[in-house]
Structures are given as structure tokens and as C-alpha cells.
């Protein structure tokens, strides 16, 4: 909107305030991209450079889709692309995919995330669901075979190699197929705590290395791009529910709260997805309700559903509830209902 008017003697006349904070949308978005780098490096080590290729494809598809939609909507293309929000969506989507997905899966996913989830609701700031997570849910339905099975990981002596390399019979050369840490099937293995921390366990591209994710998460908290209490409440609820809920399938780790925190996508979800500003409530109270709700749903899905992991759906469900939470957690007008000391 035109809130600035140039007068004839070229002094700018605009409404106060005349200074603004240094933080802007591009700064925040590129900050998030920066914070995702450690997880990217960890994935390149344990899943090989193919995962980097998937991340790159996903980003490229996201940026191209964004440009395409902006062109359709007759909005400024270049200045909007530079804000980095499409890149964030691209990276986050790639991080929720298995390391051995075919190239077209992230491309289709990113296209869906940007065009359908983000822009049909009005673009950045107006979308109801986290684009990356909604796209991940879409891909889970669209490509169930590739998303839900075939969890590969490079052999420890073949780090940085190609996870897709096969011999003439289609047998994996550098990688093996193993069950994910949270798999509830018979014969699924339990991973050691150190492995979960470093991340050399099967899983989605960006979710396995707890250390890398915590590093990025703490950076975001330090920069105040995310509120510390969102991941804290989210993780704490999963932790305590995992301790006390009676499991449906008795696995050795079923009631080990630490295992539940460090295995699977909880850290990625708690630090990078649930903290998405656009799709979470506005006030502190609202955000805590949101985080607690997401934590409870995650634990319930992990314990009592057919899926091993519940982070994605729990956050999407809480995204849906966000307008409702906002309605009931309005800030208190100063001076009204003064608390008695």
C-alpha cells in the first residue's frame, strides 16, 4: 500500500515509526535455511550424496513452482523468490523423504506444496497447513510403496557413497535395507543411543541426526526465530506420554522416553515444523496449547496407530486447529481483569 508520499521538495513523508527492526522475512527464512545445514551434512554422510541431490531437486522444484504461481497471480516474481520461503519448503520436504526416493517424488511434492498448499490460500502468510508437511502427507498417499518401505542406509565403510548403486541383479552394493528405529514389526531392531544421536540409522533424509538438528534448533532459538517453549513443550509431552502409555506392540523401547525423543522425526518436527510461524497460533498461550496438542497426538499415533511415526499428522492436525486456538487465546487487554496479588 502507498503509505509513503514524496513531496515536491523530495522529502519523504510517511507514518511513524521511522525506524524498523533489522529482522525481515528474508532474514528469518535464510536463517532457517542456514540452521538446516547441519542436518543436511549429516544426511550426506550417512545416506550419501544422493540425498543432497534430492534436497537440491526439491528446492529447485519449489522455487520453479513458486515462480510459476507468482507469474500466474501477476505478483512480483523475483523480489518474492528472494525471500527464501520456497527454499525452506523445498528443504523441509526433502528432509521428510526417505533417502532412496525416485527423483520425481520430491519434484511432485514440492509442486504440490507450493501451488496447492501455499498459494491456493493466498501465499506466504495465509496458508493453513505447513506446506512441506502437507506435501509429505500427500506423497505418502500418492506413493505409499516408496515412502513407507525400502529404508536404506550406507554401510559404515561406504559413507558418502551412492545409496542407489546396484549390481546387475539389482542388489544394493554400498547400502543395506534396514528397519527404521520406530518400526513396530516383528524382528525390528533397537538402535543404540549413540547411533541415534549421530544419525547413522535408517530414516528420512533430515531426521536421523539428533545432534545436527539440535544444533540448528538452538541456533533458531538463539536468533529468536522460533520460540523456545514450542519444541520444549512438544518434546516434553512426548517424553512423558511415552513413559506412561501402555504400548499396543511390546517393543524393547516401547516405554523408553529417550528413545522416543531421539528416534524418528520428533526433533525435526518440534524444532522446524511445529515452529512454523504461519501455521501456528499467535500468542504464547496458544503456542503452548498447540505444542502440547501436537505432542499428545504424536505419542498417540506412535503407540496406537498402524503408522510408526506420528509427527507429520499431529502437526497437520494442530495446524487445522490453529484458528480455533487463536480464537480462545486472545491477549489480555492491558488494565482489564487485573489479577489480585
Amino acid at each position, binding site marked *: *500500500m502507498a*503509505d*509513503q508520499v514524496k*513531496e515536491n*521538495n*523530495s*522529502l*519523504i*513523508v*510517511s*507514518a*511513524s*515509526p*521511522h*525506524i*524498523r*527492526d*533489522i*529482522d*525481515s*522475512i528474508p*532474514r*528469518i527464512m535464510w536463517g532457517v535455511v542456514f540452521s538446516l545445514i547441519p542436518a543436511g551434512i549429516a544426511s550426506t554422510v550417512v545416506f550419501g550424496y544422493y540425498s543432497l541431490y534430492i534436497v537440491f531437486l526439491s528446492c529447485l522444484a519449489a522455487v520453479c513452482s513458486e515462480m510459476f504461481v507468482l507469474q500466474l497471480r501477476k505478483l512480483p516474481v523475483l*523480489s518474492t523468490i528472494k*525471500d527464501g520461503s520456497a527454499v525452506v519448503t523445498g528443504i523441509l520436504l526433502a528432509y521428510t523423504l526417505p533417502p532412496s526416493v525416485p527423483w520425481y517424488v520430491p519434484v511432485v511434492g514440492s509442486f504440490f506444496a507450493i501451488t496447492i498448499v501455499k498459494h491456493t490460500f*493466498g*501465499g*506466504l*502468510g*495465509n496458508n493453513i497447513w505447513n506446506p512441506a508437511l502437507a506435501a509429505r502427507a500427500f506423497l505418502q498417499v500418492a506413493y505409499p510403496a516408496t515412502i513407507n518401505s525400502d529404508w536404506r542406509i550406507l554401510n559404515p565403510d561406504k559413507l558418502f557413497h551412492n545409496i542407489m548403486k546396484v549390481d546387475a541383479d539389482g542388489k544394493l552394493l554400498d547400502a543395506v535395507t534396514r528397519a527404521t528405529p520406530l518400526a513396530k514389526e516383528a524382528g525390528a531392531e533397537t538402535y543404540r543411543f549413540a547411533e541415534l544421536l549421530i544419525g547413522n540409522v535408517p530414516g528420512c533424509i533430515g531426521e536421523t541426526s539428533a545432534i545436527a538438528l539440535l544444533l540448528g534448533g538452538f541456533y533458531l532459538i538463539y536468533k529468536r526465530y522460533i520460540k523456545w517453549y514450542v519444541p520444549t513443550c512438544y518434546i516434553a509431552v512426548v517424553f512423558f506420554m511415552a513413559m506412561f502409555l501402555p504400548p499396543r506392540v511390546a517393543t524393547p523401547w516401547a516405554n523408553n522416553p529417550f528413545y522416543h525423543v531421539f528416534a524418528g522425526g520428533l526433533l525435526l518436527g518440534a524444532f522446524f515444523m511445529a515452529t512454523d*510461524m*504461519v*501455521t*501456528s*497460533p*499467535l*500468542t*504464547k498461550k496458544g*503456542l503452548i496449547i498447540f505444542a502440547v496438542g501436537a505432542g499428545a497426538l504424536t505419542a498417540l499415533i506412535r503407540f496406537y496407530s498402524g503408522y510408526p511415526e506420528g509427527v507429520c499428522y499431529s502437526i497437520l492436525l494442530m495446524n487445522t486447529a490453529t484458528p480455533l486456538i487463536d480464537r480462545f487465546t*486472545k*491477549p*489480555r*487487554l*492491558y*488494565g*482489564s481483569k*487485573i489479577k489480585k496479588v
Partner: protein
Amino acid sequence: MLSGEAPIKIMTTHQTSRLKTFVGGIHPEDDGKHLTREKSEVTAVVPKTAYLLMGQHIGAPCKPLVKKGDIVKKGQMVGESQGFVSAHVHASISGKVMDVVPWPHPITGAKSPAVIIEKTEEDSWFDDGEQPVAFEALSSDDIRRRIQAAGIVGLGGATFPTHVKFTPPKDKTIDTVVVNGAECEPYLTCDYRLMMDKPHEIIQGLKLVLKCLGCKQAHIGIEANKEDVYNLFKDILLNDPQIKIDLVEVKYPQGAEHQLIKALLNREFKPTQLPLEVGAMVINVGTAFAIYEAVKFKRPLIQRIVTVTGDGVDNPRNFLVRLGTPIKQLLDEAKVSPNISKVIFGGPMMGIAQGKIDTAVTIKGTGGILVQKGAQQWESHACIRCGRCIDSCPYGLNPSELSIICEAKEFSLAKESGAMECKECGCCSYICPAKRPIVHLIKFAKGEIVKQKAK
């Protein structure tokens, strides 16, 4: 007071976390105060021509008492207040009245009558004043009458006539006078300068206020970035049980009535209410000083300290400025650079940007002139719901939602959502990463709501 005694050293250490404050607010990393802070010299500026607007206060404009060709002397009343909420205007220089014409007001932008005086006479007072009076002899009404005669208004920027403020409704009692020495607005140091130079006078003025209101205690709030002021006052007030002084956290808008009262007295009242609701009254240090001058020497309000600062001037400093001084003269004194892009009356948070430098003149409420060279302009984006505006709003509003409602021109909904409670402090716009002109939108909606109500 204690001038004969040796100053007593006060502990200068304090814990930042223990400082009194309020919830919300912002603090810019670079508050620009360093530009003028250490410049202790205050240059007096006497203009060749003074443009005295008849509406330098909230309330009805004055009626001009002089006409073209009259000779007036410094301190002579040239505009008589009309109605109850109004304050006299006095000649700030001695000379000949050139004209009485409508002149653009630097805050409202509308033209209002102004008395234009050209300096032709020697700079001497209209009446030589009396011998300083003994305060003990003055009654509460005497003090109020002298304040009224001097045309004093709230010098913190609100410019509400002080004698009206000091006539509270009969059913309200004021137990504490809160003194705003916070100067939370970035870049401005005029109050800092005054507090450093005239601490005794400010305290004397404050005592007059207490007497006038029949009030027993006062509480001064100083932002922690002015610890030298705090120590200075603490020394003077050492044996004074009546006046308390506290450091408050460096945060904008710490000096606003609601926030200062919350920090010092821990009392809350609604944004639409006056401090009277909680038995308090806030006065600015500049006002206290003006009251001292008015009561003690019968000097009307004709000058004040103005900070001229920003990257657009090479020699930023504080000036003692006569009312009605064209800012062009101030900018020249401060060595203004040729390519400036923005001139702001007041500070960067709530100041009013001026369209023309040629016609802008200082008024009673002008505490600062901020000159920006490469004034940034921001492109606004849709709200990304980060919630920072809500965290920063000192009044518990939802600026994010309000700005969207106001942008959609849903004025009745805006009113329901608390648009009228907004004090336009600017924290939300400042902090917004999407650079939304939130305050601008709310101001616009408030104007429309008032218009609809008038119909």
C-alpha cells in the same frame, strides 16, 4: 539543597534483571542517543523571525491579542486561551508583529493562525519579573494560576495544558506524582540534558507540583542508560522522604503513562483511562522545570531544549530554542547535509515526518528534530503470523489482526477489536518482520471510526 555538603557516592552497580519495567515494548539496538548525549553544551538560538502558532496545545486554539504593526516584547502574551482546555501563547522574541496569518501546523498539517514576529527590538523581557518568590507563601491556587498564566503544557509531547491537568475532578484523589525522566524515545536527549544541567530546579518544580495537588509523594523514573542522572538526583534527594527515584529498564515506551506507572507503582489501568483512575499523575521533567521557572520567576514558557540529530546533520546537538523558531535555522546551525530525505518532528518512534522544511516551526511539544539522510522505505508483505507484534504491544492488543481488519476497512470490527485502545506507540510496526505499516493502518481506521461517530 545539599549544595554545601559533599556529594555522597552512590553504588553504581545494579542488576539489569531486577530493574522495574512493564510487559512488552521494544529496544532498538542503536538508539541514536550517543550522537548528542555527550555534547554538554546547549546552544541558545534566537530566531530573526518567530512564527507563533495559536494552537500549540491540545484543545481550543488561542485568540491572537496583537495585530500587524504592534510592537511586542519577549514574554508578552500574544495569544489568549479560549475555553477551559487551552493554554496562552507568549512572544518568544521582542520585535514587530509582521502579520497574523494562517500557518501550517507541523503536527496536524492543517493551517492555523500564527503571529509572526520579526526581531527588531533588544531581547528584553516584557515585564522585568518580580523578585523570586518564597514558595511557602504560595497557595495551591496561586501555583496553578501562575502555571496557567505561563501557558505551560505537557512538554513530553502530548502538550495537554498543565493547569487543566492539575484541576482533577473532585471525586479523584492523587496520592503519587510520577515524574517521567525515562526519555525512552530513541535519539532524543533533551530531557537527559535538562536533568543533568538543572536537577535542583526540576526537583523544586516537582515540589511545587506536589503542593499544588496537595499530594504527599513523588516517584521519579530514570531509564538505566542514564545512570549518571540517577546518581545525581539520588545525591540531591538523599534526605528527602517525599521523593523516591528508581532506575527503570531501558525499553520503549517506558516513559508512557501506563508503562511508567506500572513500572514504578505496579498499578494498571485501561488504555482509554487516565492515570487519575489509579490515583497517579505523570509529568515530564521538562514540564517540572517550566513550572519552576513560571512560579518562581513568573516566566512564561517561551523556550525549550530541542535535540537536533540524525545522520542528516553533521553537528547533532541540543539547542535551547525559542518557540516558533523556523527549523531551517536549527538545521543550518546543526550543519545539515544537502541531500536529506526525511525531517521528523519528534523522535523516530512517534515523530511526524515533515513535507516542507521551509514552513516548519517549533512548537511547545517539539522535543527533537530528527534528520535522516538515506531514509529507508520498506515494502510491506502479508502478515506471517510471527506474533512479535503481540509480544511487543504494551497494551495487550493484537496488532496483527487489527492491521488486517483495518486494511480491509472493517471499521466496526476494528473498533470491537480494540483499535481505539491503541496509543500508536509504534512497537508493532517497528518489530514487524513483514514491515507492515500497522500503526499507519490503525491510525487511519481510528480516524474513520471518529468520523462515523460524528455523523
